[in-house]
């Protein structure tokens, strides 16, 4: 099976897809680099596969799909007996909880983290921004802290978000959280919360993420 991922090595959304593939012990996929700075994502050839002009896009012989969390769900289902088999839970209720926490990530967690990481890291590095908008950063830090208080309470009773098993609910958090800690001044929101920190240390130590951290992320 030939798998292509249209994206970049450093894109956090693309990294969710690589993570899922690694958890399924699939490492021989091809990254088709889409140069955002040159506007390749807005060209007609790319818009044919992703009409919203975003990365990543996943392609194998059977499907072409976009939206990283949809791709991750597809990988979890398609390769369910390979590699980490708990990615989608083991029964209806576990799957329900996995879906709940993927939605929490997408609706509550990711929006403020996305803003902070873009303001402090991606915008200056790639898009010519001179300095972060401090008010915007602070507003989002406040939102994120309230969300993380809930995570802290939850993770004090559960090893992983959906229960006692690692799933795509944990996975989808990893890329942006890694960037938040390593490349912004706001990582303390994670590291100051005992159970959130322990959870993130655990899930980011997995081989699936270490490969991305060591080989894909530009450490310069």
């Amino acid at each position, binding site marked *: 099976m030939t798998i292509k991922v249209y994206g970049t090595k450093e894109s956090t959304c693309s990294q969710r897809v690589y993570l899922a593939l690694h958890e399924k012990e699939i490492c021989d996929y091809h990254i088709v680099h889409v140069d955002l700075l040159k506007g390749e994502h807005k060209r007609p050839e790319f818009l044919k596969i992703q*009409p919203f002009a975003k990365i990543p896009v996943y392609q194998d012989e*059977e499907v072409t799909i*976009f939206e990283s969390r949809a791709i991750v769900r597809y990988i979890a289902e398609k390769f369910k007996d390979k590699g980490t088999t708990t990615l989608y839970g083991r029964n209806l209720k576990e799957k*329900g909880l996995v879906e709940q926490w993927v939605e929490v990530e997408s609706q509550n967690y990711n929006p403020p983290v996305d803003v902070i990481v873009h303001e402090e890291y991606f915008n200056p590095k790639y898009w010519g921004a001179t300095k972060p908008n401090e008010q915007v950063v602070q507003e989002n830090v406040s939102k994120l802290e309230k969300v993380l208080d809930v995570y802290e309470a939850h993770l004090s009773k559960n090893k992983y978000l959906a229960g006692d098993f690692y799933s795509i609910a944990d996975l989808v958090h990893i890329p942006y959280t890694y960037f938040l800690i390593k490349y912004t001044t706001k990582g303390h929101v994670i590291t100051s919360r005992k159970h959130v920190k322990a959870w993130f240390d655990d899930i980011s130590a997995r081989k699936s993420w270490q490969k991305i951290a060591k080989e894909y992320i530009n450490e310069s």
Partner: protein
Amino acid sequence: MASLKVYGKTYSTNVTRVLTTLAEKNVDDYQMVPIDLLTGANKTPEYLKLQPFGQIPAFQDGDFTLYESRAIARYISDKYEGQGTALSGNTEREKALVNQWLEVESQNYNPCAGKIVFECVFAQILAGRPTDEAVVKEQLEKLEKILDVYEARLTHHKYLAGDFFSLADLAHIPVTNNLINVAKKGELFSSRKHLNAWWEDISSRPSWQKVLQIIQAGQQQK
């Protein structure tokens, strides 16, 4: 006594997303437990045990609790797989496309449409201030581009994930109803032929008609 419970109020599009899913699966035997954001009922310790972010809806199936409307909708679709409308796709490919368009709704469509509805309809009641026209203008510009993509998609497919109605279409219904009928932004749809046909189709489904009646009954109960 119904073992299924939906906590919330029908003015919430997230709640009515769940009610519409139940209706599509022919599941009638559930109880609505009112949790009114306006009275702070979502912030009581008892409710926070069910939904620690203090949002509505929350859902219970016996002693199993779930929250996040799209997760609840997926659970209902899975649990009642054998009855009502098949909402999640049948093949791996169909499921992937349903999930893709559900993500588009959640990441692209809903944030824009939701902000427009909030500014035009709820800013005064909930935030005690007039509509911020700059926000409405900015969000409308984004939404127009998104809807152009939908129009192109729906030119070639009857529904978003293909030729079958799914959760991906359903998820759009409550907010779109508010956008068109309450915020009066119907022109966004009536100016796009295939998008409009899609909207006419999905909003005339018995499931949504039933939920509209539930919403009206709820409004009369004040």
